[in-house]
Each structure stands twice: as C-alpha cells, then as structure tokens.
C-alpha cells in the first residue's frame, strides 16, 4: 500500500491539524475489537496453561497440556501432516497458477477476458461447496469414477477419493488462484522498458526471463506462497470430508473438542495459532521486501497476440477446456441437486431427474430453517463487519500513531488466524459467566455464530475499507472543509461515496464467507441455529446427496447474487 507522498515538501510541517478528528470513537472501537479479537485468544492461551475460570480453582500455571501433547504420537503426526500438506499445496498451486498467470497476462486469444475472470472463480466459492463438488465428481460414486469404471469394466470404483491425495487435489484446485492473481498483477505492473533494456543488452528470451522477469516476480510469488501456505494451514473442509483417519491440526482440534477433551483442544489451538502467527510475521517481512522493489512504473508489456490459426484454435480449445474443467464441479452440484434419492445406482448418468429435492427443502419451515439461519446470521455479521471495519479503518488512516497501528492490526489479525482457532477461542471464552471480566455465556445462544462470522468477516471489510480510504486524496476532505462542510457532511457526501465500491466488494466477500462458513459453525452451532453447511454435512451423512446438492446450489446462488450486486469484479484488485 503506497501512502500518498504528503511528506514530500516541508521539512518541519506541524503534525497537528486544526480540525484534528476526535480520538474517543476510535478508542471505543479499538476496545471492542480487542475484546472480540484479542481477548478470546488470550483466554485460550491462559487456559491451555491451566490458568483461568475453566480450570480447577487455585491451580497454578502448568504445562500439563503441552506435556501431554508432546507425549502423543497422533498429535505429532497431525502437526507433521499439516506442515507437509501445506508445503505440497504451495508447490501444486504454483505449478497451476503461475503458468496460467503468464498465459492470461502475456498472450491474447479468443475468449481471454471471460476466461480470465472464470479462472479466478474458485476463490469466491464456499470451500465446503467445492469439496462436495469434488465428491460428486471424482468420489467413489462420482461421475468421473463411474465413467472410468464403466469404460474399463471394473468391478469396483477405480480409485477412492480419500486421504492426502484428495486433500491436495482440492487445495490445488482452490488455491492456485493466489498464484494466478499475484502473477498476473506483478506481470501487469512490470515495466516493459526493463524487458526491452534486457533485449537491447543482448539477452535472449530465456535469459531475460531468468535474469529480469523472475527476480521481479519473486516478491509476488513469495506473497502468494505464504498466502497459500496459510490458507492450507487453516483449511478444514477438505481434510474433514476427505481426510478420514488422516488428521491435520484443524480436524484434530475439532475432534478433540467434540470428544470433550477441552484442554487438548486448547493446546492444539494454541499451537496452530502460533504457526499462523509465524506465517503472518513471514508475510509482513515479505511485504517489506516487496515495497522496496514495488515502485516500478511504466508501461506494461503488450500481449503477444497468437496469430497462427492452428495455434489460436489450440489456445481457444485449451482455454475453454480449462474453463469446463473449472466449472465442472459446480455444474455437478447443480445436476446432483435434481437427482431423487435412491434412483441412481449403477448408471453413469442419473436416470431420473426431478425437482423433488427442492420441493423437500422448500416444503416446510424446519427444512428451510438452515437457509434462513445462514442468511440472517451472514447478513448481521456482514453489516456489523462493514460498520466496525469502516470505523476502524478510518481510525487507522486518520491516526497514524500507535492507535492507528493497533486498529489496523486488530482488523487484520483474524485473517491470519485459522477459523478453527477462533471457534475454540470463542467457545472457551464465552462459556463462562464472568461479566466483570468481559466473559458471558454466549455458547448455545443465537449470538455466538454471528459473532464468529463477524470475526472472520472483519479482515475482509476492514482491509477493503483501508484500501479505499488509503487511496482517498486527503485534499478532497480539505476541499470539502474549505467549502464549509462539517465533519459529518464531509463523511457522508465525500468519504463514504468514494469508499463505497471498495467497501461493497469487501462486503460481498464477507457475506459469501459467512454464508458458507463451516469451520466455526461445526464447533459453535446448535440445532436451532444450524447453518446451511451443517445441513449439507448432515445430508451427506444420511446419503441424501440430492439434498446436499440443493443446499450447495443455494449457497452458490446466494453468493453469486451478493457478488454481482456488490462485488462487480473488484475482488481481483
């Protein structure tokens, strides 16, 4: 983020401004955020050490939990698997995403624009929907498996979509987008003159690529790698559905929690949080490295238009093939949603299609309840996240000092911390009634899930607001003030309208995230507040694939609606 160079002139400009904004609203927001974001993590950390209300009164701090963790082989195994799965996800995502980025940024072929947008699609779809789509497509009774089985006349399914391979497949499918977007952005920013300079100095194409392009891409690739690693660290849906006995830290935490081993869940949570925070630190370190080389300006290299008719056709076929491959899982979800239960046994394609599953879901309040639950909870969380994020971001922009940095850190933190960690932290903190310590019993109430969603949404709306406000020319507010507009009128007429596009895009992402949330829901839901994701998992367990498909379609449609209404392609930026 490049701040406007307001400090360019004037060696000794007074920092004070005549219309300096008040501090107290931002202090209040900072306190709220601290209670919401930092406090549960702190409580969990303390309780994992045996300190606090959840533990036996009067007990001193001890490392019993950690000692037990260290002594158990399955814990070490989960830790190791988390690390290698994450590393492998980075490699696979890079192998898919980087070449794609080059193709879409450096060449031109029919349908490039449309496909370029489609390729970024997986990032805005709820992970759980992606996972069940894979299940329907490549799972033991998925289309592809059935087709292969029928073609080869096998007795059983050709493969089983289980364990590490399945998890990696889903990760590569959903996380290559980071590499794709980062590579494209970095290539678009690159000054064509640099490449021309290399060529004029006698470097061939390969040497230019190796000595100029790649080094310039390194910050972007580092950023994408850390992002992928952290997303993989936090990934829950794929390991939960496909992992089986193959446990990673996130699933290990949830199973400990569901088994009632609270202390172990807390210890695991603390360890996963520490890993994520290490990732965040690496990220910030990489960010600084980026900013030293980031000031490249100039004209981006022109796209190489593919001219040869055969090559054009090949590119188009490859491109559309890719699009179909990417859209196939979601098309599958739609198809499955029309398959009545128990009608599809051995055929490659389902023999009967009907609206029966939809009729079932929409037949009564109890069946529709998860949809309504998810909608209201996601809307409430998004609205709160927009309000909190906007005020906090404004504070971070207006007060550059310690308060601003604290606000920025607080809205960014939940982005780095896995959802599972927050789920356990909230469960730990808000299952005790100690109002004087800011702890209330919220578990089992309708409040806890929107609160958890709010936490997950905060970085999305907050960072969007930060970006929007950061790009705002401070002279615009001064112009407004010099034209006699008060603080409120300036905010309403100038600041908010100009930040609205960025904020709306953030809100769209926030809404989709909350709507499709599975990670925190599985720890915190109750029967009355069960969201769509829990109903999907329930339907899968009951072998009601069609119903799961219907819920998946509803999630996707609501998400896409939010995206077209508010997002309008601003996500890529």
């Amino acid at each position, binding site marked *: 983020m490049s701040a406007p160079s307001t400090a*360019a002139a004037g060696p000794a400009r*007074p920092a004070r401004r005549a219309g300096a904004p008040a501090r107290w609203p931002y202090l209040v927001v900072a306190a709220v955020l601290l209670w919401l974001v930092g406090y549960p993590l702190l409580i969990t950390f303390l309780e994992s050490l045996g300190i606090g209300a959840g533990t036996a009164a009067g007990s001193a701090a001890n490392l019993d939990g950690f000692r037990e963790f260290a002594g158990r082989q399955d814990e070490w195994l989960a830790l190791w698997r988390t690390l290698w799965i994450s590393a492998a996800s980075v490699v696979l995502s890079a192998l898919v995403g980087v070449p794609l980025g080059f193709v879409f940024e450096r060449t031109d072929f029919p349908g490039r624009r449309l496909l370029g947008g489609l390729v970024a699609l997986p990032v805005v779809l709820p992970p759980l929907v992606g996972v069940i789509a894979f299940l329907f497509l490549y799972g033991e009774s998925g289309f592809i498996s059935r087709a292969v089985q029928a073609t080869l006349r096998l007795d059983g399914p050709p493969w089983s979509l289980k364990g590490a391979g399945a998890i990696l497949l889903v990760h590569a499918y959903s996380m290559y987008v980071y590499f794709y977007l980062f590579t494209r952005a970095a290539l678009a920013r690159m000054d064509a003159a640099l490449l021309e300079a290399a060529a004029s100095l006698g470097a061939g194409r390969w040497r230019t690529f190796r000595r100029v392009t790649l080094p310039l891409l390194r910050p972007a690739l580092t950023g994408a790698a850390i992002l992928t690693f952290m997303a993989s660290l936090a990934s829950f849906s794929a390991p939960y559905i496909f992992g089986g006995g193959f446990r990673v830290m996130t699933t290990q935490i949830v199973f400990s929690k569901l088994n009632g081993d609270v202390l172990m869940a807390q210890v695991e949570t603390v360890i996963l949080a520490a890993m994520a925070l290490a990732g965040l630190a690496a990220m910030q370190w990489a960010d600084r490295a980026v900013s030293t080389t980031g000031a490249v300006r100039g004209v981006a290299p022109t796209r190489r238009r593919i001219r040869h008719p055969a090559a054009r056709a090949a590119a188009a076929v490859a491109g559309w093939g890719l699009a179909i491959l990417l859209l196939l899982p979601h098309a599958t979800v739609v198809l499955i949603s029309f398959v009545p239960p128990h009608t599809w046994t051995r055929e490659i394609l389902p023999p009967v299609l009907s609206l029966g599953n939809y009729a079932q879901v929409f037949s009564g309040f109890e069946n529709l309840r998860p949809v309504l639950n998810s909608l209201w909870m996601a809307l409430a969380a998004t609205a709160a996240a927009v309000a909190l994020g906007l005020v906090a971001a404004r504070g971070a922009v207006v007060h550059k000092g310690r308060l601003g940095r604290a606000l920025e850190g607080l809205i960014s933190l939940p982005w780095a911390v896995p959802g599972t960690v927050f789920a356990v932290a909230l469960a730990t903190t808000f299952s005790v009634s100690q109002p004087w310590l800011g702890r209330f019993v919220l578990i089992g109430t309708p409040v806890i899930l929107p609160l958890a969603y709010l936490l997950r949404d905060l970085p999305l709306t907050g960072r969007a607001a930060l970006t929007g406000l950061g790009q705002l020319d401070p002279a615009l507010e001064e112009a407004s003030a010099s034209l*006699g507009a008060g603080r409120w009128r300036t905010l309403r007429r100038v600041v908010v309208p100009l930040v609205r596009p960025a904020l709306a895009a953030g809100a769209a992402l926030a809404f989709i995230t909350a709507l499709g949330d599975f990670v925190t829901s599985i720890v915190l839901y109750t029967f009355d507040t069960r969201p769509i994701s829990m109903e999907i998992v329930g339907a899968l367990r009951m072998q009601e694939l069609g119903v799961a498909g219907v819920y998946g379609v509803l999630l996707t449609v609501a998400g896409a609606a939010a995206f077209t209404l508010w997002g309008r392609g601003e996500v890529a930026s």
Partner: protein
Amino acid sequence: MVALLGPSGSGKTTLLRLLAGFEAADGGSILLSGKDVAPLPPARRRFGMVFQHYALFPHLSVGENVAFGLESGVGDAAGRPPQDEIRRRVREALALVDLTGFEERRPGEISGGQQQRVALARALATEPRVLLLDEPLSNLDPALRERTRRELAAAIRRVGITTVLVTHEQEEAFHLGDRVAVLHAGHLDQVGTPETLYESPATRFVATFVGRATVLPGRLAGGAADEVTVEVAGTGVAWPATSAGIDAGGEVDLVVRPEGLAFTHATGDGAVPGKVVGRRYVGAVTLYRVALETAAGTGAESLVPEVEVAVAERRLASGGDPAAHLDQTVHLAPHPEGPLPRAYPRDDRAPAAPADPPAAPEGSR
C-alpha cells in the same frame, strides 16, 4: 493579490494551509478585517481554496461540485439557499470561468485546464472572504499554462477578491501577484512589488532566487549605507555596488545580474580580466560564462569565480561577429545602464548559489 514565492520546502504551502486552517499554528494569529480567525475550523473560515491537484470530487458532476459549498450554506446568513438559487449561482460561477453548460459533466471527462477552472468556480461560488490558490497552474502542461494564467488573473480581477497564491515559479508570481512574498527556509525574506524584489532584493537569497544572478566573493572597499565599493576577490579591482545596509568592512557577497555586466575594451579602472568559458544563445540575449582571472592563492576560494554576462547581440542576425569567442580573454565592468551589483554580508552557511534559478518542480504538495 499576494503571491508566496519560494523553493520546495520553504514553507509556502504550510503557510497557505495555516491560512486555510488545515494546519494549526504553534502561536500567533491570523487577522481578517481585524478579527483573529486562527481558532476557527476550516469549514467556518469562509476561505475559498483551489488545490494543487484541484481535489474535485470525482463522484459528483461539475455542477454538483460547484454547488457543494453553496449547499453547506456557509456564505449565507440565512443558511442553505433554496434549490433554484443554488442552480442560478452555479450557472453564474461556471459562466465566470467560461464553462457555461458543463454542469452535467464529470471531472474525469474534462481537460486539465477545465478542471482547474471548475476548481476556481467551486471556490468562488460561495463568495469567500479570501481566495487561496495552491500552485494552481503547476498541473498544466507549459503550453496551456500561460493562457490559463491570463484567464485566472482576469477571473480574479473581475471578482475583486483578496487572493493568496502559492508558487515556486517567479514568472507566475510576477504575473499574478500585486505583491510578492519570498519565503526561504521557513522565513519571510521580503515582501514587495515585483519591481522592488528584482531591483532591491533585501537578502542574498532573494537576489539569487528572483531572476538570474551570480554570487562573487568580495571585500568591502569603501562607502557606506547603500552606496559602497567592493573589491572583487583576488582581482584588485573595485566595483561600485548598492547594498541593503552593510555597516562594517569585511567579507561580502557580491550579487551580479547578467545584464549588469558588459564587455569593455578598457583595461584600466574597474575592468576585470577573464576568459570566456561558455556561451549560450537564448534569443533576446546571449549568455556568456566568464572565468575571472584572480591572483592565485589570494582568496580562500579554491574555485575560480565565474560570472554570467548577458550581451544583446541581435546584430548577429545581420552577420556581425559575436561579442566574444570561446577561450577569448575579455574585460568585464559594470554595465553603465544595467543594475548595479549588490553587496550582502557574507553568509557562510549558504552554498554558492547556482547561476540557474532553482526551478525544480514541486512535489505533490
């Protein structure tokens, strides 16, 4: 109309922002019609401002931009005026800057010069008490600048409003400013008409910043008050000079304008020998750089002092010879009709000023 002139970092923009109320002063007062406006927030000062990058609201149309201040209702005792009056005054303001009929356009759809005029119309529409202009022309390309400057001057004269303008360009300051204030490193060096600044600059900085000039080391040889003679260091020759009041003898800086010197054939009194080391034809005059012949080792200066001499040699066009050739030895003396050299107390902190006036473009502010 006052122009604040100074190099980057001299504090002129800070001064303007103090007037506008965007910065708070550590002390002092800002008097308007005898009343201190310093405690007022920007919104209540009724100072119109045109920003360097115009700061037009990109999401509002030209008409809405101009109406913005009127809708705040600051300029009117009766508060916010009714809609049709706002519309009328927007029309008037746009007509003033020759943009009638541009109400519906967006700022992004009009040219830089038009944006500048919209910014002016927006600032003037509320009938402010003072108009503040922050480098109003720096964002325009040079071809457009002079015309826009004339239009700006005309529009402001028509309204007849007290105006403070910030600029780092002398030409702009001299054109627009009835009075020019020169700022240097946070200090106000001199306020005066363009003529005063050029002919009797109060400080060595003003002398070198306003117009072209060379600084020569010298030693006070005689005279007092504003008529002195100064020995040009190492030459043994004394030149008459004016001064802004040097009391005692000693080391001085002698500021010489290019048109204040002339080539002379006399090798006697008042003529300093030197060698032509550069020649540059700039149109109306030709600028020569002459390295003075100084007695080696007499001065503390390690560099050979060089001066710039302007010679009107239009006769070149009719095939005449140039006044001097490169490497030719010439003699210099004050031009009988040119401005006299001006002596200032030696300022050891200031580096020898370059002959070219600093005209580096300002940063974003």
